[in-house]
């Protein structure tokens, strides 16, 4: 990863953050709901298909964020934060970013190993091939466990992370949350030189 920048979050990072956050929270809710016993089987089938499509969308956005991190470097923690808070926030962000890749990859592994062999038809547009893995009851059980465990870990970590963001915003009244809500301030452009167009 490139060295950290301290000029705040750009529009791409901000859009990715909130899109991924909304998708992840929705997907955990969807994943939980579709696994409930007693759900209407036809509804369950379509919820599974939506879950796979939106999950792969989340995976590609998380992949984009990784590329952004690699290409532009990560943003340094807010200067208002103490040393421990900086470490904790950096570690949390890295772990969140990693889980946003691991959770959907494990979900894809479930779809690739299940003996049900239901195709993944991304938003009913294009067939996404399974990962090159052998289908078996054991493999499906394993990846299903990994997917659920990492998904709920991600949810827990995201809860902690948003509590911290809200704490800094509401209690400490620091600019941490605002950094993720509006684009970094652009240096004001120097006034055009040598032009006598005073009003």
């Amino acid at each position, binding site marked *: 990863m490139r060295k950290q920048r301290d000029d705040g979050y750009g529009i791409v990072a901000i859009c990715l953050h909130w899109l991924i956050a909304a998708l992840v929270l929705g997907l955990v809710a969807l994943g939980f709901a579709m696994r409930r016993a007693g759900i209407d089987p036809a509804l369950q089938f379509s919820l599974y298909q939506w879950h796979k499509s939106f999950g792969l969308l989340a995976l590609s956005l998380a992949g984009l964020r990784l590329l952004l991190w690699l290409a532009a470097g990560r943003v340094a923690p807010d200067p208002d934060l103490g040393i421990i808070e900086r470490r904790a926030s950096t570690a949390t962000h890295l772990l969140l970013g990693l889980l946003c890749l691991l959770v959907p990859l494990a979900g894809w592994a479930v779809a690739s190993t299940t003996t049900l062999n239901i195709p993944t038809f991304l938003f009913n547009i294009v067939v996404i*091939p399974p990962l090159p893995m052998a289908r078996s009851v054991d493999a499906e059980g394993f990846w299903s466990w990994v997917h659920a465990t990492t998904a709920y870990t991600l949810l827990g970590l995201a809860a902690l992370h948003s509590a911290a963001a809200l704490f800094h915003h509401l209690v400490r009244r620091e600019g941490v949350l605002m950094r993720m809500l509006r684009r970094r301030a652009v240096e004001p452009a120097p006034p055009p030189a040598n032009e006598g167009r005073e009003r």
Partner: protein
Amino acid sequence: MRHVALMVASLALGQILLPLAAFSKAPALSQAAGTYEVSGTSQIRFSVDQIGGGGINGRFTKFSGRFRIDGRRIDASTISFTLYPQSVSTQERRMEDFLRSSAVFDADAYPTVTFRSTAVRQTGDDTAVVDGMLTARGITHREQFSVRLQGFNRNDIAFNVTGNVYRSRYRMDVGTPIYLNVVKFDMDIRGVRQ
């Protein structure tokens, strides 16, 4: 002289073979006239293709049926057939449960799928087309099946029956477009003469 003898011989041979030829040309079905009960050794296979290749292959293990072949007028023959969707069998238990569930057959509410022929039309020596009313999930539609006679003897008769059914007509189109709308039936029907 030898030529004449040969001609006579071949004429005689022709006389013997002719009735046999006529027999195999004539609607063999008419020779099988009678009433039959569908035997449990029949195979009721179906498949539904899925996007990207492959699909569901299954069969029904519980069914019953009767048919009567009219020797003089094949088109007066009748067929009735019942299958029990609870008996659906595939490679995956979860798939079977899904097929039995309210999403597809709703086997608790509709324990049978029935077919009653309305018209039989002979299309070749050993082939026919059967029209009839198929009832599934309480919905009835006209469907058509192609029948090919495979053989018969005094007690038994064997047909291969194929046909495509659009499941959307019976409000069973769950899973489309991942699974195609067409259900392909391929059945080996064995009949036992009554």
